[in-house]
């Protein structure tokens, strides 16, 4: 029984267990019934015929549609992940800086880009890169081919949003650290920015690693928005594949499965990291340092050689 269920329900006795069995049978019948009706309707349309599924056993579908699409999705996601992580950490440093105007400017930046939909930023970058003469020249001089414009737009949208989110994640991590970490750093003579750079942010990153890994799922999912701005990623490739074989319905089911497996694996990795960290944090106080009490406190005359083990 999970924690939530412990709050809601008592441990079942024989009668409750019988009731649960009946409820389980009825509930499962309802769920399966709904699923069955949907399946029958889909089957009536001939979606389960072998011809609709056979294209996925041919290498062409994978070679020309699905794998290039998956590669494009992963490429945009990977570039966006790396850039958002770096920019997010920089933003977090800036938002915790001692220079007030820098702090304010970063706050405005972060809050603004967290409130604006990713798609709006993508469309803006895309249309501007194509239509605005100054920007078009600027991007051409940077060596951006016209075929890469959609890629740039996808990555820009993803990075602006996700770096703002990661900035907040890192900042939350820093606030959740014990105050003693900062105080100890300051007391050994580090400057506030050194304390942040050397002590607080590294620890915050480790503590927030699961949250950062789940942000990767968000980035991978949002890279599918590239479909709307004609970036040839997995969803748009699937559309082409579907219309080539007249099996759009089936093609999208298969691709949804690819996305689910991919993201599910990343989620599992995040959960594994979290469990590992919990295990580590549970280790007892460092060995060799006996608790300091009145009785065991070192006598004043043995300061040079602290007696560790009685």
């Amino acid at each position, binding site marked *: *029984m999970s*924690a*939530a*269920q*412990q*709050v*809601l*329900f*008592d441990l*079942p006795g024989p009668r*409750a267990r019988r009731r*649960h*069995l009946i*409820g*389980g049978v009825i*509930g*499962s019948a309802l*769920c399966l019934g709904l699923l069955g009706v949907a399946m029958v*309707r*889909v089957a009536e*349309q001939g*979606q389960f015929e072998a011809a609709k599924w056979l294209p996925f056993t041919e290498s062409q579908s994978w070679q020309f549609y699905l794998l290039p699409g998956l590669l494009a999705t992963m490429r945009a996601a990977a570039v966006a992940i790396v850039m958002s992580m770096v920019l997010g950490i920089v933003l977090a440093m800036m938002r915790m800086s001692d220079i007030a105007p820098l702090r304010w400017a970063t706050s405005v930046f972060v809050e*603004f880009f967290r*409130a*604006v*939909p*990713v*798609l*709006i930023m993508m*469309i*803006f970058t895309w*249309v*501007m890169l194509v*239509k*605005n*003469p100054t920007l078009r020249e600027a991007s051409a001089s940077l060596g951006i081919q016209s075929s890469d414009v959609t890629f740039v737009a996808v990555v820009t949208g993803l990075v602006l949003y996700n770096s703002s989110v990661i900035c907040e994640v890192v900042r939350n991590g820093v606030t959740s650290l014990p105050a003693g970490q900062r105080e100890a750093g300051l007391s050994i003579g580090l400057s506030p920015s050194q304390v942040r750079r050397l002590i607080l942010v590294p620890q915050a990153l480790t503590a927030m690693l699961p949250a950062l890994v789940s942000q990767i*799922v968000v980035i*991978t*999912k*949002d*890279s*599918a*928005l590239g*479909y*709307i701005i004609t970036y040839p990623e997995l*969803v748009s490739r699937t*559309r082409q594949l*579907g219309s080539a074989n007249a099996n*759009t*319905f089936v093609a*999208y*089911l298969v*691709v*949804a499965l690819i*996305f*689910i497996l*991919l*993201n*599910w694996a990343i*989620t599992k990795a995040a959960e594994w990291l979290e469990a590992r960290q919990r295990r580590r944090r549970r280790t007892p106080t460092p060995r060799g340092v006996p608790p300091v009490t009145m009785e065991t406190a070192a006598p004043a005359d043995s300061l040079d050689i602290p007696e560790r083990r009685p």
Partner: protein
Amino acid sequence: VLELIEQFNVFGAFWLNIRLAAVSFVLAMVLGTVVAILRLAPVSVLNWFGSTYVTLLRNTPLTLIIVFANLGLWAQLGIDMVPRDRPNFILENNFWLAVLGLTVYHAAFICEAIRSGVNTVPVGQAEAARSIGLTFPQSLREVILPQAFRGAITPIGNVLIALIKNTTVAVAIGNREIAYAMRNMIEFRPDAGLLIFLLVAIGFVILTLPVGLLTSWLSTRLAVKR
């Protein structure tokens, strides 16, 4: 810019986003509560159904779901959301297909929000309720659900904010909402692009900010002292 707003019907476009968000939110709340009940039920088969739904829907991109609703459900299976003889059949049908996609996607998140609300209630509360002799429905009604509801306010507010922003994805299947209007406006006046972007962005800040303020006000006001 003012004439641009009028020419491209910015308010009408935003109004479509608001309608999409409102209808989808209500439906997602209903569906999400059902899934949450499945996930929290004391029967492990039902738990399995609930968590399967959440795993499947939460890991699929919203774009894929909405495009699938249009190309898969409507174009291939021929599922009409509104009667075909309506004058604006295509537009209305796309609206409801987008609502369908937004609803099933966000229901998974609503379910998780409700579950995390229930998780904020310490087990001691339930034990105390039982030990003073409350029956199961009484302890649920008087002790557990009021606290769980308060714990769920903030996460549900976060889902609503995400939902408002995600209504822009409806443009993928030809809904003439703000992303569509913005694209046309910038294509028409590329020189004023930044201004148009800021206008749309501020529109979203105006839409999402009250939700955030309201939920944080509510959750501090109704916070359970522990």
